[in-house]
């Protein structure tokens, strides 16, 4: 599975560099592994991209250990200036984020980093990842408008500098109608939607869940909806993840 591109890569292929990827998950099935996969891909030796990671959910050590098992050393990437890790977990910094100025400050940091990177090396591709939008909402004290503004600003970055923006959020939070605006807006912004769900039949040891990938960019380029929707199942391991079509466990 490692050497060739897997189903997830295939489904996300032809995504232009300046697009938005939205990962949705739920309590039963975490979608964080898609984030890990994209982290690894953008930090791989073949690509020369810069990764800006905004961590709201887990500390650096957590990601470091996971990515090390996937074969990517985050500490080294940090030293090589290919990874910028913004730790937004600690409360003293979250105070700073609370309210409008906090998210502003965060955006300015990101904006500055993106600008610097695009100035120094013209061809460098930039990836921005935010690991939990729902926690960002908490940091903004429930002011969804601020979060939306933030995302819109980041979205302009993607068009201006050709960044890839990857955000993770939890879908089941927004099942109630009145809170759904932010999810709908994010889904509208997203060029690729990745949805992680548990199996409808319940837990199984060899199938950990299913992924639905909706690739809007595919459909644009071809003018038809071919390859638009991908649906497959996955099984996670420490060092990799397996993706397979339902009923064809490889």
């Amino acid at each position, binding site marked *: 599975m490692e050497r060739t591109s897997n189903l997830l890569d295939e489904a996300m292929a032809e995504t232009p560099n300046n697009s938005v990827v939205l990962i949705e998950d739920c309590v039963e099935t975490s979608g964080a592994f898609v984030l890990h996969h994209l982290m690894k891909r953008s930090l791989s030796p073949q690509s020369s991209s810069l990764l800006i990671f905004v961590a709201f959910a887990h500390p650096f050590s957590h990601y470091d250990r996971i990515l090390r098992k996937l074969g990517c050393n985050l500490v080294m990437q940090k030293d090589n200036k290919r990874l910028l890790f913004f730790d937004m977990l600690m409360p003293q910094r*979250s105070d700073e984020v609370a309210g409008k100025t906090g998210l502003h400050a965060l955006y300015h940091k990101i904006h500055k980093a993106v600008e610097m990177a695009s100035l120094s090396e013209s061809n460098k591709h930039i990836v921005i990842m935010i690991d939990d939008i*729902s926690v960002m909402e908490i940091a903004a004290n429930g002011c969804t408008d601020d979060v939306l503004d933030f995302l819109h600003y980041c979205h302009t970055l993607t068009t201006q500098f050709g960044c890839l923006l990857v955000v993770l959020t939890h879908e089941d939070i927004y099942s109630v109608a009145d809170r759904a605006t932010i999810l709908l807006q994010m889904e509208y912004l997203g060029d690729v939607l990745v949805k992680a769900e548990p*199996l409808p039949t319940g837990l199984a040891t060899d199938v950990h869940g299913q992924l639905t990938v909706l690739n809007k960019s595919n459909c644009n380029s071809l003018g038809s909806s071919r390859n638009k929707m991908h649906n497959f199942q996955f099984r*996670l391991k420490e060092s990799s993840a397996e993706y397979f079509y339902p009923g064809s466990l490889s």
Partner: protein
Amino acid sequence: MAATKTRTSSFSRNFSAVPSSRTPGLKNGPNGTVFVSSGIPDLDKILGGGFPLGSLVMVMEDSDAPHHMLLLRNFMSQGLVHNQPLLYASPAKEPRSFLGTLPSPSTSKDDKTRDHDVGQLSENGLRIAWQYKKYFGEQPTSDHQNVKLEYCNEFDLRKPQDRHFLNGQRIECISLRECSNMSTLLDHCSTFLSQRQESNTTCAGRIAIQSFCSPQCHFSDLDWDMLSFIRSLKSIIRASNAVAVLSFPASLLSSSFSKRWQHLADTLLSVRAIQDEDKELAKLLTGYQDMIGLLNVHKVARFNTQVPVILDATTFSMKLQKRRFLVLECLNQAPVDGSSGSSYGTTGSCSGSSKTGSLDF
């Protein structure tokens, strides 16, 4: 580290306490995590070792029944037995009085009853290990140090905790009613954690917060503040070696906020009482008479790894063994003809996900 790695096989249960001559009640787990015991041996087993240090455990309460208290009591008592500092917050006016209801470990006082008990519960190997340990490590000097040798004790719910446990160490109690807002509570927690880290870094701390969003706390209109409290608590817990157990009545929250809380939990459990005279259920489940409630495991903390834990079962029955010990058991479902037919139908239509399992092996 190495010492725990080498210990295997028959000694595993008792010797989890070996590295704990300095750090009582800690056990090394996979991926660089360290476990503390939940105080319920079965729950530890289900969760793969216990609650990992740095995790936030949330328990969804049954609003009609106090089953979450059983979990909290055992969790707190286990901490006292291991001489770990404890912070307890509850909406009661006098939270300290709750300490009087903590159960005491069954394995205390005279060794004879203890050995007898253990012999009943497991094989002889444990007793050998126990006696071996007595010759080996530092000599146990008093009763409660005998008890300390175990990573996880059995608690006798009918026997109150010894006085010396309650007096001997730092136990902080906070009434949530007196916390005018969440930040005071958070300050309590962070000072508790930082004090502990100054004094003794090897010792794990325990925070137990009971019925966090209950109406008595007057937090009900502060949804976002509560969330940000939990988020801050989670991050300070993660950075220190402590475990927090927070129980909350999920039914009082709106469904979207309840989901947010659940997402913030590292380990998520829920408890539910069962009706006395539920004939339907009694017919379905064997051993229904002894059950006092059901425990659901929704989420198991995954630190430093992306592989989810897939449990064999997520629902367990809570039973009181000999009316004293809390045990968790898998539900034993009595086969019912009518339902088995329909369940076959669903597995057939589910696009082979369950079929593929059998093909793989």
